[in-house]
């Protein structure tokens, strides 16, 4: 694991007298994969979870596309990777290799056999995603390699278990494997899948056209196998009496890591970041509340370190605080912090606006979505602007003047909701 992690910190370290909150954007860039390459195939385990509840039959293209996508993912598995396919209903069934719940090693023979098993899948039954994840967890438990990744495909809501049951499962499996979630059609719940994806430190997206599913599965599978190091965590050291107000991944998408803190040595806490590819960059927004020192004093507000699963430090950066009575220094806005503060507000404005729209609160929906249009415009987030324009009529983007549309396609609304957490990277085209 010769991967190196460069840590860059963007902040205005100057604080006015008595001020306690220190904001910084921490950019972590992994490099060195060309030397080390991705982790060995034997270290990688993949579990493909396909929803086979009754609803997958309508329209018939949905199940067909799911089968095709799963087959594409299987084809992408490198020789030597351990894998299994799980069919999910109100229960979970290992359809390949067999019901004994063990992973098998990919080769020409097992890939062909797995695809035949997928071809035989029939849609019938309910939906209990907690069951699916529990089964995946059991499969992964026997795998000794470092990289464990699941793909979860569903088309519906988690109707056959209570939210509490799902929560318990998520608490249990969080940190044991990573995973990406995909919703096909428009009958699934964005919030539900987003919650699962956050625990699995992965992405969530909507696949509107089943025909696009195969390509999506192929790319998720190959990017999971391209990871060069797994189990990376971000360690924060903060001074005595300091408090981490929040730590969020803000690029490529928003993930709040604040609650994932695992306390370590005194004044340190670790936050999981999952697996990293050899050439990958992510931004984090850190906000620490320290005990203010005197004017002219300099303080290390936080030391940010990246650690591999064995605890080896792979990279380090510093967040500073300097108190000054020079307001020209302390009032200067840091461009990176301002940008991501805006992107986070954009995401919550979209989510709150859509929620208000659903319950018929036109006033709040108009205000929130108008604010979102303005923020997306100001930050140059063209993708989000485009998605917003399908849900509202934009009269003037710079001022955020909009009108709600009477009719909005479900898929447009869900796409906007799902992708609200995808941020625009600061300073990049």
């Amino acid at each position, binding site marked *: 694991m010769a991967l190196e992690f460069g840590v860059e910190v963007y902040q205005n370290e100057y604080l006015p007298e008595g001020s306690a909150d220190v904001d910084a954007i921490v950019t972590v860039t992994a490099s060195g994969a060309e030397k080390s390459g991705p982790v060995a195939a034997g270290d990688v385990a993949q579990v493909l979870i396909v929803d086979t509840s009754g609803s997958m039959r309508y329209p018939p293209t949905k199940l067909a596309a799911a089968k095709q996508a799963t087959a594409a993912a299987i084809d992408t598995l490198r020789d030597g990777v351990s894998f299994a396919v799980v069919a999910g209903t109100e229960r979970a069934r290992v359809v390949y290799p067999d019901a004994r719940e063990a992973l098998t090693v990919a080769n020409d023979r097992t890939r062909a056999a797995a695809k035949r098993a997928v071809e035989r899948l029939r849609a019938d039954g309910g939906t209990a995603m907690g069951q699916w994840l529990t089964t995946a967890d059991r499969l992964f438990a026997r795998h000794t390699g470092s990289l464990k990744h699941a793909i979860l495909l569903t088309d519906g809501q988690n109707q056959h278990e209570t939210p509490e049951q799902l929560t318990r499962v998520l608490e249990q499996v969080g940190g044991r494997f990573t995973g990406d979630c995909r919703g096909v059609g428009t009958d699934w719940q964005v919030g539900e899948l987003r919650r699962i994806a956050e625990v699995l430190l992965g992405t969530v997206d909507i696949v509107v056209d089943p025909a696009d599913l195969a390509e999506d599965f192929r790319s998720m599978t190959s990017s999971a196998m391209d990871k060069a190091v797994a189990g990376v965590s971000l360690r924060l050291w903060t*001074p005595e009496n300091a408090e981490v107000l929040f730590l969020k991944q803000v690029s490529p998408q928003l993930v709040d890591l604040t609650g994932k803190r695992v306390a370590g040595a005194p004044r340190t806490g670790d936050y999981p970041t999952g697996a990293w590819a050899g050439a990958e960059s992510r931004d984090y927004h850190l906000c620490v509340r320290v005990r203010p020192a005197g004017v*002219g*004093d300099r303080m290390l507000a936080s030391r940010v370190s990246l650690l591999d699963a064995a605890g080896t430090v792979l990279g380090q950066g*510093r967040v500073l605080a300097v108190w000054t009575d020079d307001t020209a220094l302390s009032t200067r806005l840091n461009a990176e912090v301002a940008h991501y503060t805006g992107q986070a507000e954009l995401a919550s404005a979209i989510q709150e606006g859509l929620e208000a729209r659903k319950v018929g609160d036109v006033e709040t929906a108009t205000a929130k979505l108008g604010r979102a249009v303005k923020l997306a415009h100001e930050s140059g987030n063209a993708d989000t602007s485009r998605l917003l324009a399908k849900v509202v009529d934009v009269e003037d983007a710079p001022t955020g003047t909009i009108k709600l549309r009477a009719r909005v396609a479900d898929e447009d609304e869900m796409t906007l909701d799902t992708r609200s957490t995808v941020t625009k990277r600061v300073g990049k085209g």
Partner: protein
Amino acid sequence: MESCPECAAPVSSQDRFCEACGRNLRVQRTPVGGPGSPAAARCPCGGAEFDEDGFCARCGRVRPAGRDRAEFSFPGVAGVTDRGRRRARNEDSLAFGRVRKRGVVAAVVCDGVASSERAEQASQLAVDTALDVLLTAMQSGGDPEQATVDAVLAADAAVSRLARAEAADVAPSCTYVSVVLTEETATVGWVGDSRAYLVGEAGATRLTTDDTWAAQLVADGVITAEEALTDRRAHVLSRWLGADSGLEAPRTMTFRVETPSLLVLCSDGLWNYLPEPEDLLEVLPRGVPPVEVARELVEVALKSGGHDNITVVVVQLRGGNGA
């Protein structure tokens, strides 16, 4: 048998230098190069561990440089220098020493000019150079006035050599105030706006006049003393040490020491808050050793805002403690 204060090797009372380490045994002085280099052992929070960048492992604050706060105390003389609350660095320096068995004490305070570069280096070099000249001259029974003039000119020359040709307008510079105390007399010399006060039974007197444009204008009757306090030129120096000083000689004054009293040298970080001798007299603690007097005066300046670096050296005259 005595032992060398530097290396503890045995020395005789006749020795001028330690045979083991070469230390001058006739002289006791503050360390050349300044206080506690390179850095303090403990953070103000009490933490004693620092990372490789010098941040306290407990409270995160940067390790205090030795210069930020230093105290020195010898029999009859003590000094405290402090960064204050607003400045990023302490650009004041102090140095003092005693010639044993001759009853001689010499002390120097220099205040680096903030608008010049490497101001703390200038003030440290100035106090070290001047003290060296003063102690050497007084060891061989030199004249205090002449020693003071020589010390200032040597310090001026040394500080001038710090200047870079390409940055002449920010040539390192500093103020200067010193006292040389013998058994009968005290000689004060100064350049710039660092001050000397005499505090005796009869009250307090300022011994120096500021080399500032404002003071000059007051002397010339252009503005009143009250106006000078708030005048923006109040701190603009008319004389200093450094490459661009054009200095010919310091001002000096000598007086006979007849009664027990205290002599206070200070930078403007103190007297800004205590402009008149009566102000100093009011806050000066009585009946305590010089180091406690110096600490208390620095504390007064810190509590008043500590806008500038603060340096105070207190010298006892005839065992006086300001009572």
